[in-house]
């Protein structure tokens, strides 16, 4: 072990070292790992990323997805990402800010994507999540529904589902629910 407690000397030395040097806020290990994720992002051309709090705050950002095929072609969907200081031990919190008629996204913006919750692993990264979200738009899945009604329509009547999606994206009512235009 080390010679730790030459206490008196140590105290004097610390007092001398301390004149005025006050480091700023600590960077968390999570921020550093996120820095790596972000600097290595390779986004599909249907996705863009923005940092509303400026270039230095990476812990909150927004991703816009514009599907180039499938039911949601032509729509624009905004997702917010909030990353914790203990990332990647914990998955980012992702919400869909655009109200969408979708079997796996509820009307409050909660997203049912396995890698955001039960299947999150620290080896996954921001890129994986963005691809996962993109995938939800090209292949909505009625087996794991969050929006119950939308899932039932997709399963039983894909044609009706398609026209419901169109109506929602153009801005209008599907059943009792109003959707704002997102095309």
């Amino acid at each position, binding site marked *: 072990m*080390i010679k*730790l407690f030459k206490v008196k000397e140590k105290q004097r030395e610390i007092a001398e070292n301390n004149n005025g040097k*006050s*480091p700023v806020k600590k960077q968390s290990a999570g921020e550093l790992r996120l820095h790596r994720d972000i600097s*290595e992002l390779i986004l599909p051309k249907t996705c863009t990323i923005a940092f509303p709090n400026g*270039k230095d705050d990476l812990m909150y950002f927004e991703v816009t997805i514009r599907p180039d095929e499938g039911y949601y072609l032509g729509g624009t969907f905004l997702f917010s990402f909030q990353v914790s200081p203990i990332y990647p031990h914990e998955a980012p919190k992702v919400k869909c800010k655009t109200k969408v008629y979708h079997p796996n996204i509820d009307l409050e913006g909660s997203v049912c994507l396995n890698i955001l919750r*039960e299947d999150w692993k620290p080896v996954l990264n921001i890129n994986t999540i963005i691809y996962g979200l993109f995938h939800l738009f090209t292949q909505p899945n009625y087996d794991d529904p969050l929006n119950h009604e939308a899932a039932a329509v997709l399963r039983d009547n894909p044609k009706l589902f398609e026209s419901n999606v169109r109506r929602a994206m153009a801005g209008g009512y599907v059943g009792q629910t109003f959707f704002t235009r997102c095309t």
Partner: protein
Amino acid sequence: MVDTATPPSRSRDLDKLLLRPGNLVGPTFEPGTELREDLKEYVKVLVVGAGGLGCELLKDLALSGFRNLEVIDMDRIEVSNLNRQFLFRLDDVGKAKAEVAAKRVMERVSGVNIVPHFCRIEDKEINFYNDFSIIVLGLDSIEARSYINAVACGFLEYDSDDSPREESIKPMVDGGTEGFKGHARVIVPGFTPCFECTIWLFPPQVKFPLCTLAETPRTAAHCIEYAHLIKWDEVHSGKTFDPDDPEHMKWVYEEAVKRAELFGIPGVTYSLTQGVVKNIIPAIASTNAVISAACALETLKIVSGCSKTLSNYLTYNGVEGLHTKVTEFVKDKDCLVCGPGVLIELDISVTLRKFIDLLEEHPKLLLSKASVRHRGKNLYMQAPPVLEEMTRSNISLTLYELMDKVPKDIIHVTGSTRRDDKKTSCLRKLRVVFKGVEGVTDMDMAGGA
């Protein structure tokens, strides 16, 4: 006959450890009354957390001869704490834990001085933490441990040959309990693994798929999480759920009961609701006592050298019978938080562009396409395009200017490197030292992680 004129000294038992030499002592142990008095006079111990472990720790440390203690905790006393946080009484409910705990121990143990801090650990200046000889942690969250670890490791300085400077080391003793299980560990930054070196030890949190909650709940916990994660947002648009607000908790409980009735699921109770939502595992007073005792002993050993210290991670399991074991974990030599990083000496005229090129040629790094971050500021980002554009103007500036003209500091770089002819991404810590700038000696900081 018993001599009643001179009562035995309160430090009688402690004296047996501190005044006599022995075979099991640490290498630098210097027994004697001076050591005992120094311990009282000069050693300052910070206890982080004044809850189940914190109460025990303050009592144990005060009775182990430490005179200068401080305690920090942001919580107020709740009724449910009283079964094990033995310094608190029913009348104390609603008061600050740190303040009451400090007062109670001072009332009982004469000569000890405990300064309470009723605030968040992040609210304190970094230098507040540098005042202590040792920091003892009685916390219940990974996040708080990670923060204190980063602060303590931030004080660590390395010599030019990458060996830690002894006087910059801020040791920590970390305790933790969950029900009948617990751990005590010793973290000596630069020598034993830090919290971040072994973060993989923590099991992933159990999270239920949202669609299971929405569609096919099978357990009471599913019903509670449905009310907490889905129903709350549906009803309280935009209002954040506060787990410490009893009204909010009651609402979630009632919704969970409705949900459980709908699906015929038994077992939703108010305390289970609190447990699931706040991730609480019932705390056991005796586990806290055992773990805290181990932590207080390690603190005494590290400070005095009166015995070799725990090396370096003790686990305790009292679920069935009793099992305890010590494991020696190893440091991650490239740890971004406690490791030395790669020392790089630069002229103050080096531009960021030139610096990025240098990293590619540096034999220890061979890092191409580097993105550079300094103290929470992105100096240059290779991707995504939006950030590249925002940081592009920096690359013709000198690194010295961009680092606010400090003579030396830590920066972090991300890029790709070649390993076995394969490109792999990597994130590295660098100790940048500017040549010929006043104030630079042959050592420099490891901190800033």
